[in-house]
């Protein structure tokens, strides 16, 4: 991290900027977004979004470094002290999620230029980057804020912009997918504000840290119980927890490739973070999580997601949709980490946030490259693709191996951690479940491998690779999938710090 501090010193007035970093993290992409409309030109707006993404990534790294070294960063927006004003509060948990979002943004953007130019009409490209920057703002805002209502506002900023991004897909089914997501997403967000309103009725506060001290006194009331239920279901819709996942497969399958890469790697992850923050920080002082049976429900739903979604994935012929179902299944692993509710289990869930972002990012990037060259992601068009597009398919293979948790890939690290956490609780059947589900993952990845590597390419089929600007980010992601699979200690230690920050003084 020292290197980043040194870099940081070269910026003008570094000392003056530094205390404002957590606000700038959100303000920079927010103010940068309308400039895309002014620029209009596809290349210029792409370049602008690229610069902003890298600045955001850089800031998130500095924040993570600062949090790990010095502890929690708080920021009072407009100088109003909390709990009256909005507070931005960054501990190890949000800093970790900020880095995931920043990193995915910074890697996706170089990849985006060629792919977006191919899939979106030229006149609408600047709008895509506008929506991307707004979505980035929303996701970073959800992560950084310490105010329950402010979280809702950012949730809607990110959701509204992602509906638009999905609707920009070239297939007309993208429109209906975006519409269904809009209905489900709005219901989820509205459930969330109902919950926040009920908490406000009982405590008169919206500040998360303040709420966590005020809620235990009123936890016996039905109002708080209802608030808890509304918030869990509302955020459950946003993070596509089984069986509230129905909007996700089509949304990811028909969105433009770049939107899929970005949203699959960040949006659901940030919603999971929001649930973690609400359950373990805001309701952390209460016993609601254990008493109401939410813990058991989450574990059962997580296992159902892991199996049912993986099973459905086996029968998909659209590979982007197959990967989307696989995402629902993988979200199950993260929810499982929440359900275990021990520091060890939460570490497993959090590290899987990062690891899944890496492998699913790689897989969807490979699909984007394949769509760029052959114009389809249907399994029947992929015969012999292993020879026609060796680099993209190699990247897909790495992601696929990671999806079923082969050692030396990131998938192994998180599944191992989760299995150990459940064994530590004496719940051996969960560990067995994780193992069995991996077999299902082998089945759906194998179908693709079989068609692309075993079948000969048809006569006159399009050949050749996607442009270098798409291949390099894809290979970086694939390399990260392996790198963090070999050196799991870095991510695990950060995830553990994050889990400890969330669990606080709980057992």
């Amino acid at each position, binding site marked *: 991290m020292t290197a980043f501090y040194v870099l940081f010193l070269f910026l003008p007035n570094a000392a003056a900027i530094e205390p404002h970093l957590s606000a700038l993290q959100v303000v920079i992409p927010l103010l940068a977004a309308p400039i895309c409309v002014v620029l209009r030109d596809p290349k210029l707006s792409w370049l602008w979004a690229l610069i902003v993404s890298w600045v955001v990534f850089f800031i998130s790294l500095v924040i993570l470094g600062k949090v790990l070294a010095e502890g929690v960063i708080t920021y009072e927006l407009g100088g109003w002290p909390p709990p009256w004003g909005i507070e931005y509060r960054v501990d190890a948990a949000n800093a970790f999620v900020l880095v995931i979002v920043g990193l995915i943004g910074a890697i996706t953007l170089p990849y985006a230029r060629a792919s977006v130019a191919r899939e979106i009409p030229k006149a609408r490209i600047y709008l895509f980057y506008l929506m991307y920057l707004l979505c980035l703002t929303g996701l970073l805002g959800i992560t950084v804020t310490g105010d329950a*209502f402010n979280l809702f506002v950012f949730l*809607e900023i990110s959701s509204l912009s992602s*509906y638009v991004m999905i*609707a920009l897909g070239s297939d007309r089914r993208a429109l209906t997918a975006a*519409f269904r997501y809009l*209905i489900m997403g*709005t*219901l989820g967000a509205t459930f969330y*504000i109902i919950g926040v309103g009920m908490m406000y009725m009982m405590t008169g506060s919206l500040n998360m840290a303040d709420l966590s001290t005020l809620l235990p006194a009123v936890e016996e009331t039905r109002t708080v119980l209802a608030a808890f239920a509304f918030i869990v279901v509302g955020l459950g819709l946003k993070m596509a927890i089984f069986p509230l996942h129905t909007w996700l497969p089509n949304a990811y399958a028909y969105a433009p490739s770049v939107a899929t890469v970005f949203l699959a790697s960040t949006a659901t992850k940030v919603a999971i973070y929001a649930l973690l923050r609400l359950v373990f920080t805001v309701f952390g002082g209460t016993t609601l999580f254990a008493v109401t049976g939410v813990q058991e429900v989450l574990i059962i739903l997580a296992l159902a997601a892991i199996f049912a979604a993986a099973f459905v994935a086996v029968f998909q012929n659209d590979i982007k949709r197959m990967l989307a179902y696989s995402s629902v299944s993988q979200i199950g692993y993260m929810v499982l980490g929440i359900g275990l509710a021990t520091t060890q289990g939460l570490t497993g869930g959090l590290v899987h946030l990062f690891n899944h972002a890496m492998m699913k990012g790689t897989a969807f990037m490979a699909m984007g490259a394949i769509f760029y060259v052959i114009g389809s992601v249907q399994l029947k068009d992929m015969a012999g693709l292993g020879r026609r597009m060796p680099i993209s398919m190699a990247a897909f293979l790495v992601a696929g191996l990671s999806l079923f948790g082969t050692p030396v890939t990131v998938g192994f690290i998180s599944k191992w951690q989760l299995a150990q956490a459940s064994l530590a609780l004496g719940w051996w059947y969960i560990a067995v479940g994780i193992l069995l589900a991996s077999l299902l993952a082998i089945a759906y990845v194998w179908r693709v491998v079989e068609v692309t590597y075993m079948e000969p390419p048809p006569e006159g089929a399009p050949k050749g690779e996607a442009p270098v600007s798409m291949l390099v980010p894809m290979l970086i992601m694939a390399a990260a999938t392996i790198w963090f699979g070999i050196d799991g200690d870095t991510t695990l230690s950060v995830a553990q710090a994050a889990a400890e920050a969330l669990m606080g003084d709980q057992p």
Partner: protein
Amino acid sequence: MDGLNSFFEPLQGAWQAFEAFMLSEGSPGLFSYWVIIALMMAGFYIVIAHDNLVKKIVGLNVFQVSVFLFYITMAKVSGGSAPILAEGIEQYSNPLPHVLILTAIVVGVATTALGLALVVRIRNAYGTIEDDEIQAIEEGEDA
């Protein structure tokens, strides 16, 4: 007319009893919350049950409006005046939920606008805005 009146008479009686209960000491100020729940359920039902996409958006709107009312209601302090500093007024309603819900109203307007824009595009692409017909077309495409 007499027949109609005799038909409505028991209903009127029931409504009067309901109103009296709502305004009685036993349930102080809960009338508004009953309205909110009725609106919320009506909106939610429209979203789920109707196939017409515009009706779905309208249902979503009703659902959201019930939450706006919920925030406005909870801010009301009985006997409190509008939160403007003036002489002789001691008790004010809580202005914060009102301000919060202004934000949510803006979000609701944006959602409605985007939803309706999507319906226009869906109509252009599919030639219908009935969800069941769209699903039939999509299933035909998948096969």
